[in-house]
């Protein structure tokens, strides 16, 4: 279980002085949840993820994982970044094995897990390939295998599919949900793409910027079981509704509600939100 307790984090920038990325932010993620943190740039979602990962320390408050304070990054929380960050001097299999060597797992165990997780991400044929030979989607698959190989309880993912083409993104989303259902890991997934968040998460937390705070916390799994798809009516509806909520409160920032990979123009409110019996209504969201 991940607990974020009244966390504050400030950053110093040469252009803007000190800005508070997070202030009095609290959040709890239960084991086995797939939580998507969505919001415009500057809403603190990446900062929040970095705090849970241990890559940053909070200025106020605390972050607890399984009751223990997070002080540093570690293999119990696997992380994926937008850039695969694979090491070019190692082969694919060696990359997957990197963390396992840190844990000093015996060779046989390393090989077995490398094979298992490369199979899981459908990259088994590429064990001896070099990183520069792989496409973006392939690299992210390997990055996923690398994170999974340490068998962490928690996976933290910072827009891992953001740089991929729609087809790869779609395939990887489906595979991620599949892996989640098989392994019951706790996943915290950061994205600016509302449709992606609604498609993936059992729970979607919409964050608002300036000041950073939780705008909506939606239990998607309750109403809409997996498998979902970005083009599915309920998904589109809910994503649009959530995005509208954000827009209504004055957010003009880069939120992508229709999944086209671009910031949406401030569109006129669609009619779907107010009708009785719409999916968004059932989740208790009203304009």
């Amino acid at each position, binding site marked *: 279980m991940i607990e974020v307790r009244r966390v504050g984090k400030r950053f110093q920038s040469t252009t803007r002085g000190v800005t508070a990325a997070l202030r009095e932010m609290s959040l709890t993620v239960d084991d086995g949840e797939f939580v998507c943190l969505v919001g415009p740039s500057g809403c603190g979602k990446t900062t929040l993820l970095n705090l849970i*990962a*241990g*890559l940053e320390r909070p200025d106020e408050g605390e972050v607890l994982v399984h009751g223990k304070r997070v002080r*540093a*990054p*570690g*293999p119990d*929380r*696997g*992380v994926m*970044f937008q*850039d695969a*960050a694979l*090491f*070019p*001097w*190692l082969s694919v299999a060696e990359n997957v094995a*990197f*963390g396992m*060597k*840190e*844990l000093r797992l015996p060779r046989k165990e390393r090989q077995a897990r490398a094979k298992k997780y490369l199979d899981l991400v459908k990259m088994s044929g590429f064990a001896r390939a*070099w*990183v*520069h*030979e792989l496409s973006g989607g392939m690299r992210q698959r390997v990055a996923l295998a*690398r994170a999974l190989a*340490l068998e962490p309880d928690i996976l933290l993912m910072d827009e891992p599919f953001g740089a991929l083409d729609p087809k790869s993104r779609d395939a990887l989303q489906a595979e991620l949900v599949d892996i989640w259902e098989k392994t019951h890991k706790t996943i915290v997934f950061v994205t600016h793409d509302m449709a992606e968040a609604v498609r993936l998460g059992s729970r979607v937390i919409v964050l608002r910027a300036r000041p950073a705070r939780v705008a909506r916390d939606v239990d998607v799994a309750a109403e809409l079981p997996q498998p979902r798809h970005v083009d599915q009516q309920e998904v589109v509806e809910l994503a649009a509704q959530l995005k509208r909520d954000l827009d209504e409160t004055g957010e003009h920032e880069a939120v992508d509600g229709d999944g086209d990979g671009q910031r949406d123009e401030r569109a006129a409110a669609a009619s779907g939100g107010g009708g009785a019996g719409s999916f968004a209504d059932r989740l208790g969201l009203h304009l």
Partner: protein
Amino acid sequence: MLPGPGGVVRSLGHTLRDGELARAVGTSLYRLFVGYAMSACAGITLGVALARMSWLRAAVGPLVVGLQALPSICWLPLALLWFGLSEKAILFVVVMGSMLSITIATEGAVRAVPTLYIRAARTMGSRRLRLYTRVILPAALPGIVTGLKLGWTFAWRSLMAGELLYVAGGLGQLLTLGRELGDMARVMSVMVVIVILGLGFERLLFGSVEKRVRERWGYAQAEAS
């Protein structure tokens, strides 16, 4: 003016037969390898330190850049004053001539290592020394190899310059001897040997390393370094 190839080859044969060439090559190579090894170790260490410690960079950085611009042979008078007419003096010239170019290349390469690699490694449990040996140094390797190649060239040149001026064995001395005897063929034959040794070792030492860099990083990175 110029001796024909025949004359050069004959002269080569003479020096080979009476063992003079072998001795000279042995002396020169010994100085080169020892000097270069010291250069590489000190150079890489200093380069990594400069890259990771900004206070050191501020204190020593400009000095490094300035001294690197000094032609290596200018170190000889200082070396002779400090160490007298000894092997240490020649080694000093070789080290000072090559170390700083290795340092500068290493510093650049280490600073260019993407912070993302370090973050990724930390999330997998890498810390402190292992971060350096398993991530930072391997990531910086292409740039470091470039520096080492450059350092090798400088080391060879520093050595020859030193041996030419400070006559005490080695190929440089053979060259000087040839000049003093007015023996053009001998001079040219020694030059040929110097070129062959220089190129040959460069290929030997760096050929396979560069091949592996190209193989793993791909051509783009290999070219960039």
